[in-house]
């Protein structure tokens, strides 16, 4: 391949002084020609994209010299790609893009709505608010928990604070507390624990009664239809379902507090239904993640009686019963003692704040677990806090059936749980792990440390105490800790069929010979019987004759 001719594309690309043909002095005119050829080549537009290399290289070099990135040679391909991409972004036409309405904008709207002060309040109401308000000081609690590294980010806490304020302004609430956050698959739950003013809850129970009466009306209509068909009815099963344990009254036991949930601060608060003992018993046997939608079905075995709202309420009840603790002495029993006998030894279930509470030092709170007590009533195996015999009928029926009761094979033993305000040192651990881990928030500054307790049985439940202040909170997935793997309940054994006996066992049909033999034998027997009768008659006659 000899020296490149002016018309060839390789011409003029070699550096002067380094080409192998430098002994030939190049013609300056042909040099200029070579340069022009090269430039013309570079200016040739691409048939595919309409760009040309000359302009592209010029743009790229301009961009590099403007921005001066370090190690430009390493990212040169990306710069080239960016320049090409930028070229195509220029919209030369008059059509404009519609502004994208991102879902983030809507969410931001909702969060902003929290911060707008309602305009309907007059000055008089402001004065009332400065007094006692049910709104808890979420930021103060968050501050104490933050000393131990527990809690949400500050602005999420503040949003929750404002969302609770909105809840209080809508519902007639006496006390309110931020219970915690439960994580879910699609969305999370933020939970508020609330107590209504007395007398405000009756609306709910009326609705339930109306529904029940409606159901009974339907039942009567159905009975009439059934009577007409009584002749052809298949045999009724003798299965009696076990009696359903009635739920506890609102305001007592497991239903002491009402819970409201929302997915994100800014979204509307939804009330969770009261919990039934059957739901708690079932929730103990299953372990499912929450999806974040309250109406999602809970698919499990044993089948959970309810949807996710009920499962959530049952888990909240279990967690509250197991992990709501307070420093000893903060709560005390109220002074009336006349009720002990009537409750059948079930223990006292009301407590009040102790006005003479003397807080213990942080070292004492952390050192031993007997300085903390449960103020959440524990749930019995039955699913209630106060034991109730489900076979107990009303008093009138009791008198009639007293005799039968002794024969009842399903007599239930009364269940007793630990009484209220038991110290934590009585809590069972799991294998060799204590039920609670206690530590001070900081070892470097013991004067201002906060005592922090973490539950090992319900991972995610925390409590802090500092001087006269304490609180409980839950951040987690909502499940109990078990070192063993979860074994789901096995399906019940296959029901036994009818017991086989001779009356329903099929026998083989007799063959022809057997039938004939049987017939012959019967005829013989008949003939023999007749002869005997004849003989007897004859004998009787003879006897009569003898007399």
């Amino acid at each position, binding site marked *: 391949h000899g020296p490149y001719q002016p018309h060839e594309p390789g011409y003029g690309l070699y550096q002067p002084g380094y080409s192998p043909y430098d002994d030939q002095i190049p013609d300056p005119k042909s040099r200029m020609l070579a340069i022009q050829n090269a430039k013309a080549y570079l200016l040739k537009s691409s048939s595919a994209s309409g760009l040309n290399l000359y302009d592209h290289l010029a743009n790229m070099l301009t961009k590099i010299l403007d921005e001066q*990135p370090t190690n430009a040679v390493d*990212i040169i391909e*990306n710069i080239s790609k*960016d320049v090409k991409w930028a070229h195509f972004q220029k919209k030369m036409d008059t059509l404009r893009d519609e502004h994208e309405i*991102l*879902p*983030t904008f809507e*969410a*931001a709207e*909702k*969060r902003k709505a929290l911060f707008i002060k309602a305009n309907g309040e007059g000055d008089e109401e402001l004065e009332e608010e400065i007094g006692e308000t049910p709104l808890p000081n979420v930021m103060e609690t968050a501050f104490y928990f*933050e*000393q*131990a*590294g*527990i*809690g*949400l*980010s*500050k*602005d*999420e806490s503040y949003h929750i604070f404002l969302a609770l304020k909105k809840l209080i302004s809508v519902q007639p609430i006496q006390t309110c507390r931020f219970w*915690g*956050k439960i*994580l*879910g*698959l*699609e*969305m*999370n739950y933020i939970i508020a624990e609330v107590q209504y003013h007395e007398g405000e809850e009756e609306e709910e129970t009326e609705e339930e009664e109306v529904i029940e009466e409606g159901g009974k009306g339907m039942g009567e209509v159905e009975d009439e239809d059934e009577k007409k068909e009584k002749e052809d009815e298949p045999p009724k099963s003798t299965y009696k379902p076990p009696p359903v344990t009635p739920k506890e009254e609102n305001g007592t036991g497991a239903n002491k507090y009402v819970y409201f949930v929302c997915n*994100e601060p*800014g979204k509307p608060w939804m009330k969770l239904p009261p919990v039934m003992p059957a739901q708690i018993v079932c929730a103990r046997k299953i*372990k*499912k*993640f929450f999806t974040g939608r309250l109406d999602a079905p809970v698919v499990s075995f044993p089948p959970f009686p309810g949807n996710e709202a009920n499962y959530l309420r049952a888990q909240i009840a279990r967690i509250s019963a197991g992990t709501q603790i307070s420093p000893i002495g903060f709560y005390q029993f109220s002074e009336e003692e006349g009720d002990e006998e009537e409750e059948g030894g079930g223990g006292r279930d009301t407590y009040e704040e102790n006005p003479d509470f003397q807080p213990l030092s942080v070292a004492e709170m952390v050192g031993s677990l007997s300085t903390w007590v449960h103020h959440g009533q524990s749930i019995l195996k039955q699913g209630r806090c106060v034991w109730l015999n489900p076979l107990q009928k009303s008093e009138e029926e009791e008198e009639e059936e007293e005799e039968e009761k002794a024969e009842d094979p399903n007599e239930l033993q009364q269940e007793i749980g630990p009484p209220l305000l038991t110290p934590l040192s009585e809590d069972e651990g799991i*294998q060799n*792990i*204590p039920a609670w*881990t206690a530590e001070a*928030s*900081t*070892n*470097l500054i013991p004067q201002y440390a906060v005592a922090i307790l*973490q539950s*090992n049985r319900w*991972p*995610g439940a925390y409590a802090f105490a500092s001087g006269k202040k304490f609180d409980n909170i839950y*951040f*987690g*997935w909502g*499940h109990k800790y078990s*070192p*063993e*793997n*979860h074994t*789901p309940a096995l399906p019940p054994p296959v029901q036994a069929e009818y017991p086989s006996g001779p009356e329903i066992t099929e026998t083989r049909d007799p063959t022809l010979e057997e039938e004939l033999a049987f017939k012959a034998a019967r005829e013989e027997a008949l003939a023999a019987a007749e002869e005997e009768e004849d003989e007897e008659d004859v004998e009787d006659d003879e006897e009569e004759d003898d007399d």
Partner: protein
Amino acid sequence: MEAASLPAALELAAGGGVGLSLEKRAVLGASLLLLQRDYRFERVWFWGCIQGVRGAYYIAEGLGPDRAAPRSRLYSLNCVEWSLLPPATEEMVAQAKQLKGRFQGDPSFEYEYTEINAEDAERLFEDGKEPIIKEESRLVATIEQIDRAVGIIPRGAFVKTPLGSVRENRNFEGLSLTEAKKLSSYFHFTEPVNLKNKTLLEKADLDPSTDFLDSLEHDIPQGSWTVQLEKGGTVVVLRSLLWLGLTFYHVPMTKQYGYVYFGTGEKNLDLPFML
């Protein structure tokens, strides 16, 4: 998460409720920097915290010039003094898989084997070793398992250079909002396992400089990741359901991303029942 962006990152990953106390945050800023100086790491990542019964382990990882090389891991009980952990071996991981229950919080605690095969027991007695495992080995093995199983990065954040080493991609501008909600935009930051099983057609679409890792799409069981938008939809948070406590966050269209583990260090073997 990067040590340099620790304060902001902790705020973004705080949706799970567990984080670091103010004291620890303050001291980590200084002690991680000193770690970088002492061990000559190029990058230091704060990996997270494993909660034991009596104490907690704080873990940091150091990366060298090749970001995909095996990382050095260090642990501390108080975030002030750090000790280097031995590199994880397959044997350690296999032994630690047999252990159940919480960490104790004391690195010299010794677990006793409760169930071993007859063959393993014979082998051990022949070697003269006693069937015990130290908590330190269990810690190493657990961190290795977690990193291998659920340590993730967004697609495009790292590039493989032609020489084989992996570096950060300086042109990574963040995933868009639609991309960030898909599981296929995140990769496991560990040796790929499924990559060679892809069909030729799929491989043709891949860009070898950025798509050299396994994506999360084909993780077993399906649904073991939750993808949520938090803070009004401005942060994408992925949480692993297999190792409860691992949180990955990313702010779309920015370079902020990272993962951190705050948990008890136990695998959630009940996952198939819970979904």
